[in-house]
């Protein structure tokens, strides 16, 4: 327990000092929120909609922080520590792989939640955003999406043979997901064909869930995506811990 708290504190400080997770995970989503707020914020989402464009996009903006921390921050830190042989030093201490991965998981979770709180504050204070749906439902969906993205990030960190591959894999998954899932480019403005393609991305499903809960619109067939996300998360984390390498 002492190891967990001390390492967590240290790694959190290092992450803040490192700046990149802070910029891509926390500042960037705020910028997206501000731009969206200025450009289309108070307009209705579509002709005759009873919610604004901002309300419709809020879930998607919140997901940017999850992706930046889970698909960049988390796997790249682990790959970097392996590359620099920092994990090799931990190898000859009593620390367990699960603890090493768990600490990076929690550090990035904290960054992601910080990002969410800031985005919420920006949207509420400057653009009159109000969550019309259930906050608890939204929080549950948020954690579910986070779990699925982070477990993917952990698996990437474990299976990448070196930092170059880790970088490449993260970019290959992160950028298409960020653009086509509706996190930055609103799903609603995409052509029908692209929407269908985007539906395969797990994040698209996640964002639909976030949108639905934040708007309070009825969710259809919610059970199936939830079961799939949880099952995938369990498998990915299992693979991550099993294939974890110190060097």
């Amino acid at each position, binding site marked *: 327990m002492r190891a967990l708290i*001390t*390492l967590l504190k240290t790694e959190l400080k290092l992450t803040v000092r490192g700046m990149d997770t802070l910029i891509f995970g926390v500042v960037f989503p705020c910028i997206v929120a501000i731009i969206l707020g200025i450009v289309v914020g108070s307009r209705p989402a579509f002709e005759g909609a009873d919610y604004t464009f901002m309300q419709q996009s809020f879930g998607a903006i919140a997901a940017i922080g999850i992706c930046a921390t889970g698909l960049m921050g988390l796997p790249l830190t682990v790959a970097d520590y392996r590359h620099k042989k920092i994990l090799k030093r931990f190898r000859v201490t009593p620390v367990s792989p699960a603890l090493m991965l768990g600490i990076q998981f929690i550090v990035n979770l904290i960054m992601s939640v910080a990002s969410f709180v800031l985005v919420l504050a920006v949207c509420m204070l400057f653009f009159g955003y109000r969550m019309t749906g259930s906050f608890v439902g939204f929080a549950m969906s948020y954690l579910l999406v986070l779990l699925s993205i982070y477990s993917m990030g952990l698996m990437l960190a474990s299976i990448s043979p070196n930092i170059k591959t880790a970088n490449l894999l993260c970019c290959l998954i992160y950028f298409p997901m960020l653009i086509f899932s509706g996190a930055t480019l609103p799903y609603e403005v995409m052509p029908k064909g692209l929407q269908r393609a985007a539906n395969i991305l797990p994040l698209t499903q996640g964002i639909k869930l976030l949108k639905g809960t934040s708007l309070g619109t009825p969710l259809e067939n919610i059970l199936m995506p939830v079961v799939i996300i949880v099952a995938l998360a369990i498998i990915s984390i299992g693979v991550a811990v099993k294939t974890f390498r110190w060097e």
Partner: protein
Amino acid sequence: MEKALVVIGLKKSYGDTVAVNNLNLEVCKGEVFGLLGHNGAGKSTSIECILGVKKPDSGEIQLLGKNPVKDRKQLFEKVGVQFQQSNYQDRITVAEICEATHSLYKAPSDWKKLLQVFGLGELKRKTVSELSGGERQRLSVLLALVPNPELVFLDELTTGLDTKARRDAWRYLELLKSQGMTIFLTSHYMDEVEALCDRICILKKGSIIAMGKVRELIDKSPYDSLEDAYLWYTGEEGAVNESAYHLA
């Protein structure tokens, strides 16, 4: 005597290159054991196999009576390690790395006291990357001692240290030895080996060419200094004159 380390028939190759060839050795508890040899003789590979960091091709290792891979978590409560090269997280400070290392163990030493012993007390707030080579080296030895280990591995413990820092490190290791710590070290400095080691083992191309008490090995050679004897054992007495440089 109780054994701190037993190595039986350790072999490790990289492709066609044999790095360690049939290494057999035993280190008793409370002993200071030196593993010597030129660069590339297989010292670091041997240590990494002993610690379970590298997988040996064959052979058996007992570290404090345990298996370094299977009993890893238990074992490394009591075994400290300084690798030849150590890297640390970017932008981490001296105090932070000490505190983090300290937190990993159940019964560690007081790291603030260790910082004083190693003359790093003033540098607590500096980041590790701001330290000089010698300061970093002292830090890596210090971190190996944080667990308050029964057995410590020091791979080239004083490389890059100035004369005073070297002497300070020796004095502290002698103190630890008098308290019963077992020390396994590698070094290129024969004065250091003579000052610290009870027994030594000389490796050449992965094989043992001499092993025994320092005095015995000198007596068995035609020379009366360890440095000359070492070069004689490794078959390179001709290089004695050049090697005088390295002592400075």
